[in-house]
């Protein structure tokens, strides 16, 4: 364990360290100490004050101050209140919450009990994806173990406070990661959002005041209570204290789960922790925030990671997906990939999201197929911003981000698709063709042997030919040719 290490693990401190199926392991790492400390030496207001002073902000992506959320829920008068955990992780390629729940389930239980004590709730529900069977198994086991030891249930640790936890399984709709949709889903309704206000902290699940936080947000709570807010503030930046977990994926050598202090430059994550780009190629852009975020071009790699900096670049923190792209990735194709996802996942309740995203997707599809018009580029921007301004919930308000941000930073690539009918990265199949250069081909047969649809013919030591009608444009011949004799254009 290095002191100078770029990675600082607060939320993930037990992940991969303890045996998640053994409550004694968690207790051995000072587990449930924060809950005991709060119950026997702090008032609920003091707990909230500590969370407020820590400056912890929602790790689900929007970055709302957690302490203020808790305080609002505490001030709402009601006999019944709820604590909800949003474990409906749905961004393509993101797995922070899954790893946390699988590797350290008790930490979430402890944090939710702390929240219950702080806001005056006696019941909590973890909304977890049914597609995470191991996370579900570990959570169920953890709840049983904690109840058996009197760390959950009635009269926790012999005191007056009681807190009961249960699980609710999500069926995999992306929109259910939006808090009002999630609550509709728990109530047995369709996973559709509603207008806010009222905010969940005032009127949430079954119209009772409800505090809802993301998995990673909760994972920070026990340590803030145990070590104090001053301890937490020594990490990260003034406005974004603490650390953030990222699921690093894409063209880096070391893909995986990383946790860094807020304010760390993107470059440190990609080059130091990620080990640079595969094959020694150049980084072109970094996508953060998944379908709600945007692409940050390589020239902005020294941007420190915090909520405001990323938003300033037209992206967002998001839940923590981070996909690194190199020269072989087409930015229009990336925007189309995410729009395909959000158009599919739109619940259909509000018009801007239901129809607007569909129109955006049609434009992007036209552009990638060489049918785009220059005015599509302006319309993409105008319509994208209209959707952002008018959609009902966070899904629609952020879904045009991938298109708007790539258009902002990679307009030349869009123009190449539209004006020159050319895909610079060579991934848009309708715009790419492969041709064997007669003067370079040595007739080695490597391309013919590797072609998956056997559309390359030619005798040994004779120039080979690609049958353009049968070619599926996979590019295997181009990458395998030892003589650079296959041209892409």
């Amino acid at each position, binding site marked *: *364990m*290095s*002191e*100078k*290490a*770029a*990675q*600082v*693990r*607060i939320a*993930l*401190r*037990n*992940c*991969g*360290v*303890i*045996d*998640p*199926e*053994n409550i*004694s*392991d968690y*207790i*051995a*790492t*000072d587990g*449930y*100490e924060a809950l*005991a*400390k709060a*119950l*026997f030496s702090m008032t609920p207001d003091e707990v909230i004050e500590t969370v407020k002073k820590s400056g912890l902000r929602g790790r689900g992506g929007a970055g709302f101050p957690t302490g203020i959320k808790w305080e609002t829920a505490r001030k709402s008068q009601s006999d019944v209140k709820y604590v909800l955990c949003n474990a409906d992780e749905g961004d393509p390629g993101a*797995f922070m919450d*899954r*790893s946390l729940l*699988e*590797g*350290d389930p008790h930490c979430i239980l402890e944090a939710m009990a702390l929240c219950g004590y702080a806001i005056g709730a006696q019941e909590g529900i973890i909304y977890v994806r049914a597609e*995470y069977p*191991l996370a579900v198994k570990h959570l169920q086991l953890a709840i049983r*173990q904690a109840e*058996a*030891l*009197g*760390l959950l249930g009635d009269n926790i*640790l*012999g005191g007056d406070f009681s807190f009961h936890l249960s699980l609710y399984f999500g069926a995999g709709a992306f929109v259910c990661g939006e808090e009002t949709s999630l609550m509709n889903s728990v109530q047995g309704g369709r996973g559709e959002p509603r207008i806010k206000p009222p905010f969940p902290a005032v009127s949430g699940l079954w119209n009772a005041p409800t505090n809802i936080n993301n998995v990673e947000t909760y994972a920070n709570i026990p340590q803030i209570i145990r070590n104090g807010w001053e301890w937490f503030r020594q*990490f990260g930046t003034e406005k974004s204290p603490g650390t953030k977990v990222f699921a690093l994926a894409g063209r880096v*050598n*070391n*893909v*995986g*789960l*990383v*946790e860094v202090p807020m304010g760390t430059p993107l470059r440190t994550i990609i080059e130091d922790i990620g080990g640079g780009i595969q094959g020694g190629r150049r980084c072109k852009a970094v996508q953060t925030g998944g379908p709600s975020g945007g692409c940050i071009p390589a020239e902005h790699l020294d941007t420190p990671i915090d909520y405001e900096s990323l938003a300033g670049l037209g992206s967002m923190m998001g839940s923590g997906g981070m996909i690194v792209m190199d020269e072989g990735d087409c930015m229009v194709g990336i925007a189309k990939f995410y729009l395909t996802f959000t158009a599919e996942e739109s619940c259909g309740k509000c018009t801007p999201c239901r129809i607007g995203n569909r129109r955006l997707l049609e434009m992007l599809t036209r552009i990638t197929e060489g049918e785009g018009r220059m005015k599509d580029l302006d319309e993409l921007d105008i319509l994208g911003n209209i959707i952002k301004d008018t959609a009902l919930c966070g899904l629609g308000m952020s879904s045009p981000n991938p298109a708007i941000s790539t258009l902002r930073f990679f307009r030349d690539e869009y123009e190449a698709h539209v004006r020159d009918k050319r895909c610079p990265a060579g991934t848009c199949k309708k715009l790419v063709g492969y041709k064997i250069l007669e003067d370079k081909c040595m007739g080695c047969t490597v391309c013919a042997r590797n072609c998956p649809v056997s559309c390359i013919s030619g005798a040994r030591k004779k120039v080979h030919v690609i049958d353009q009608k049968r070619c599926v444009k996979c590019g295997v011949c181009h990458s395998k040719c030892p003589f650079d004799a296959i041209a892409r254009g």
Partner: protein
Amino acid sequence: MEKLTSWDALKNYREKTCGQTSLLCVGEQDANRVVLAVGEATCGVAAGAKKIADTLQEEIDRLGLKNASIIATGCFGYCYAEPMVEVRMPGKPSVYYGYLTEEAARDIVVKHLVHGQLVENNVLPVEVNIP
């Protein structure tokens, strides 16, 4: 299990179970224990961690190493190097091995556990600060 009914009871429980967890305590209880922590979250299992854990166990049984035990942990974040195992010995810094094959797993038991030598090819440089 008996319910804990006070803050002190929680502290006592922590001390009492010290020698039964996968985290080695300083002191006599764990002086001879060796723990092999295999990352068995979804990512590790997908990369073949169960087979590696089985191989480690077979080798430990074959050599009759009674002080060594295998535990399944969650994801350590080094997905690119899965399957991986952390070797914990009392009083020594942990050694992390990655890119494991069944052969490398057997090597780790024989070389590292029995002879105290590193299996160099599979050692991972781990730089993580857990404050």
